[in-house]
């Protein structure tokens, strides 16, 4: 009896075992990537449609998030957004999301670019790579599970490591960039 | 199949004879003839060595910087740590008195001085907490901050353990359940206290004076 219980609980634990440590070495072909489900406004024509939240495939995967961090620096994302505080581009560590915080929105922002100066990366990076960056970008404001967020990098300490940050709750409001206004 | 050695070489069964009568020997509670003394010394060696390692790491990291503390990291405060050291040194008085009373099997004397020691331990702990603020640097600012925090934290754990050990012994004494061995424990506690206080002197010099000299 005891043994059965032990075995059963071990199996349950295995099934629940976090995917934090998985390493994904195979990427899907581009066509397999789901079309992002982008919604940037809560105002909709007709009856209120329920927009399902999308999930980033690597949000709870420490290794892939770290791959995203590597790409974030290699692809010069850090040149504009720095370590999340922003510069040329808007900050990524705060609670304001111009184009939405939903993983699909971030994916679209990276892949398709945005008119205010964000280049489209869909032609330079594979969907898998973009998804890793999506998870890293979300980890910057603490939107991903703490255990999967990167620790400090081997660089000048600019701010708290993502894993030590307090999660920012994304604001539902959409703030158009200043350049859109005139 | 039997692996036994050549039988002629095996000594014959031996008859037991009493060569030493130990019935007159008593248990020793103080000094090197008490095993708990050896245990205490063992832990002192280990903990002392971890402090030495922290200090070694401190000086190893020192060579990576032009200035020390690194540029724009402020010098640590001197006042609070000095008071802290002074309170640590003062702690030696009550605990040594308690140990002296213990060696004379004076339970009431031990109780009196242990109570003072215990109260004073709380002062030490409070001073140590204040001392972390006196470092004037965070552990994640740079490697200097990391190593000074680690060193001070290492020693803070000694204070915490000492406080707890003293509290445990005091509990026994105040419930009037003390045995011979507990008098020995007071003596060992005093030895440990001397260690932790004396060990702090080089740490103090390193943390608060060395940056002022370089």
């Amino acid at each position: 009896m005891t043994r059965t219980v032990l075995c059963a609980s071990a199996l349950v634990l295995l099934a629940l075992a976090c995917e934090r440590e998985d390493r994904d070495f195979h990427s899907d072909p581009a066509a397999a990537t789901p079309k992002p489900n982008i919604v940037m406004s809560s105002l909709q024509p007709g009856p209120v449609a329920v927009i399902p939240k999308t999930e980033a495939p690597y949000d709870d995967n420490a290794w892939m998030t770290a791959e995203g961090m590597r790409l974030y620096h290699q692809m010069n994302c850090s040149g504009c957004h720095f370590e999340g505080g922003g510069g040329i581009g808007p900050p990524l560590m705060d609670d304001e999301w111009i184009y939405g915080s939903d993983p699909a929105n971030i994916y679209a922002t990276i892949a398709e670019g945005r008119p205010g100066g964000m280049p489209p990366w869909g032609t330079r990076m594979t969907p898998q790579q973009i998804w890793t960056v999506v998870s890293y970008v979300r980890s910057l404001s603490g939107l991903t599970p703490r255990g999967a967020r990167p620790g400090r990098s081997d660089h000048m300490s600019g701010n708290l490591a993502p894993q030590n940050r307090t999660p920012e709750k994304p604001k539902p409001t959409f703030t158009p960039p200043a350049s859109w206004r005139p | 199949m039997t692996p036994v050695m050549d039988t002629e070489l095996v000594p014959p069964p031996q008859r037991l004879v009493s060569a030493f009568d130990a019935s007159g020997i008593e248990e020793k509670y103080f000094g090197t003839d008490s095993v708990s003394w050896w245990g205490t010394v063992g832990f002192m060696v280990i903990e002392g060595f971890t402090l030495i390692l922290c200090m070694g790491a401190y000086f190893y990291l020192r060579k990576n910087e032009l200035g020390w503390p690194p540029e724009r990291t402020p010098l640590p405060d001197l006042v609070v740590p000095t008071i802290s050291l002074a309170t640590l040194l003062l702690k030696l008085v009550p605990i040594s008195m308690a140990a002296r009373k213990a060696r004379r099997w004076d339970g009431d004397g031990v109780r009196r001085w242990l109570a003072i020691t215990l109260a004073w331990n709380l002062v030490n702990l409070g001073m140590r907490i204040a001392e972390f603020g006196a470092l004037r640097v965070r552990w994640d600012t740079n490697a200097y901050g990391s190593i000074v925090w680690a060193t001070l934290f290492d020693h803070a754990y000694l204070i915490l353990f000492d406080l707890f050990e003293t509290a445990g012994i005091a509990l026994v004494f105040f419930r009037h359940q003390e045995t011979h061995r507990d008098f020995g424990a007071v003596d060992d506690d005093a030895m440990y206290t001397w260690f932790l206080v004396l060990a702090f002197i080089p740490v103090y010099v390193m943390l608060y004076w060395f940056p002022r000299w370089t």
Partner: protein
Amino acid sequence: MSAALAPIPLETETITRERDALQRTWASEPGLLGWLREVNHVSIGKRYVITAFVFLLLGGLEAGVMRLQLSRPENRILNPDSYNQFFTVHGSTMMFLFAVPVMLGMGIWLVPMMIGTRNVSFPRLNAFGYYTYLFGGIVLYGAFLFNTGPDAGWFAYPPLSTAFTPGKRTDFWAQMITFTEIAALAASITLIATIFKQRAPGMTLNRIPLFVWSILVISFMVLFAMPTVAVASIFLALDRLISTHFFNAAEGGDPLLWQHMFWFFGHPEVYIIFIPGLGFVSHIVATFTRRPVFGYPMMVLSLVATAFMGFALWVHHMFATPLPQLGQSFFTAASTVIAIPTGVQIFCWIATIAAGRPRYATPFLFVLGFFIVFTIGGLTGVMVASVPFDLQVHDTYFVVAHFHYVLIGGALFPLLGAIYYWFPKFSGRLMSETLGKWHFWLLLIGVNVTFFPMHLLGYMGMPRRVYTYLPETGWGPLNSLASAGAGIIVVAMLIFAWNVFSSWRNGDVAGPNPWGADTLEWATESPPAPYNFAHIPVVQSPAPLWEASGTMPVVTGMRTDVREVLISSVMDAHPCGKHEHPGPSIWPFLTSVCVALYFVPVIFTPWGAVLGTVAVLAGAAGWGLPHATSSKPLPAPGSMYKDEPLTPEAAR
């Protein structure tokens, strides 16, 4: 010896009565709770050894899987990720969970018997150490099971182990280190106090068995080596968990600091593993040549010298880092010089063997195997001690071959010999000689077939820690050969396992001293009673059982109703006190659980440290609760103890 009496033969019924009383006092308790409350060194030592062999089995299985993966080019049994975990867990298991604990476990099991006492000095600390070690192993393998096995190598160099291994894998590794270090430190403190203060009367420094010397030496080494790696692994964990910068070069930290600290532990670690092997060899050589080991003082001095030098050559692991030229030369010299004490010992044994009539029983065969394998490993060690050569073969399979020769030759062969040798004392039965010889020869062949080709692979440039290689490299045939050798080792170890299993049940009954050996552990029954000796022996020579006087001088007058041991002086083992040991206690186990409550939660949140501190203090509080000993209540004020501490004279 003030209390020395004219020898009085002991009455048989007195002996029987005392035995019964001792049995009641020292007996282990039944049931799971009794198992957890156990504090006798024989039980704890056995647990250490058996647990360590379980980890040897696990580590060996991992090695086997890796050899399968490498047996041909572009194999797909393991992917790179799992290969990283396998070699890391294999190395960590063998070093931290097998080699050191098994040696300390043998010490815990054997030392009190060898020096003629009833138990180790701190029985509960000893039990605590075992549970902590066990939890360390459980933590590592629990993590491994859930795909969180460490993957940064058993050395965990930053920045690989900091910025490049996200997730919790390396954190589990670091905490496993901390667990096993605590265990090793607890064991070494216990052993030092035991050896210094609980030796049988008359066992002066120059009568201490060589194995006890070796345990004493490594206990001191542990005292300095283990805090180093514990501090280093805590630094590593802090870097990973709360963003300190110990190893971040950009913020003034230094990855080389880790290497220095790790190898300041890591190199002595090799000697911690290897020196007890020398102790085993000495006893086996003495017993099977029927001669006391030649040059006892030289042997002891060599042990001590090895220990000191072991701390002075860690940098030879770092020849590929930018070091000052002078430093390189110094550590090259030191690495060469350490061959001298080892050479002295080998020549002492050769002299002993040459002077005696050796009997080639299995334990002795393993000693000969040790000579062969270890000498090859030692010679390649002298080769890699030279900086230019080291730079050439650094990080290749040559190094893998070298240290497996050293560790298998220097530790595993003597250990297996020791198992064959002391198995009768362990179980009361002898192991099969036939199976033992099969085991030995297959192992000897297997080890050489596995690891010798690795030297050549190293010359051919095959790097360590690669999960596969291309057919064009030409490394395939030698790798296949090495993997075949690994298969032979597996067969050999299966034979060994069967031998242990079957002999434990059906082996020949051994009796107290089947080999006719000379040291005190053979003076008591096999397996020994929980109190070891009904009467503590009095030692009058370095080989007490070979004194064919027909009588055995013993100590009388020890209490049998409490767990009392005799305390003797450090140098000349003069009886100078007694010490009453505590009985079984659940608190060592519970405190160990509390330690686990410290080190596992901190992996996930810094608040774990707060929780853990509270838990550990609570555990310690429970441990420190007044326990039921017979320690007398305090005499009334004004009694004889008023002013003077207790002295032997005053007491008498």
